[in-house]
């Protein structure tokens, strides 16, 4: 399991950087938990990074989990229906606990 915390503002000027970072960090078959507690702005290009990570994960039977989104990013996840398509949690601890439980079962 990889927990990736994204902080600050993600827009088109830095979303490619984020994509590179996510790709570098993630090991094959790893579940990914995005900790969004400190994320204050997310545009559609940033959301694409999360979704494309979810597609990569799906290829090797892993999931992307979204945790602790607040404010504007939380609303973008909501209006686009992404918070229904991907497992979404109020806290990162909750996301971690869920992934661990899935593993041992």
């Amino acid at each position, binding site marked *: 399991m990889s927990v990736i915390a994204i902080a600050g*503002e993600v*827009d*088109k*000027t830095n979303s490619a950087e984020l994509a590179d970072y996510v790709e570098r960090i993630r090991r094959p078959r790893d579940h990914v938990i995005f900790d969004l507690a400190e994320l204050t*702005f997310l*545009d*559609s*290009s940033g*959301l*694409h990074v*999360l*979704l*494309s990570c*979810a*597609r990569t994960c799906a290829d090797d039977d892993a999931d992307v989990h979204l945790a602790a989104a607040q*404010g*504007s990013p939380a*609303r*973008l996840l909501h*209006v*686009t*229906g*992404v918070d*229904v*398509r991907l497992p979404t949690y109020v806290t990162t601890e909750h996301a971690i606990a869920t992934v661990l439980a899935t593993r041992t079962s």
Partner: protein
Amino acid sequence: MSVQFELRCPVSADLAFIRDLVRVCGRYAGLTGERLDHLVLAVNEAVTNVLDHGGAAGSVTARGTQDGIIVEILDFAGRLSAGHLGGARVDPTGAHGFGLWVIQRLCDGVSLEQTGLGSLLSLHMNHDPATSVRHLGRAGRERQPAH
């Protein structure tokens, strides 16, 4: 809140600056919480499109209205079409872009006009109903500001 204003700045790669300006204008126009965030996100998406798909040159104009604010994004390249707007879909798998869908979903009104200077996308956003005492009924419960 009723004093009119008009503010203009060029489309530039510094999206954070444009977001800050839109936030100041939107707040001045009476928007708060969720609706202010939505306006900021919608303008951000429209400006990003000018940088990505347009001529990377244009202007952003914010104007106070009786009911809220209008933000106009002018793309000098003039290639944004009604077809693009109408064809916008949300795609939660993320295979396609959905900036234009998000814009239309979040704003109270969106219109597109082809002008001599380029394509002009106008985003309308009304005051947050929850800040207006007269609207504090059902609408107020439906749209709670975040704080």
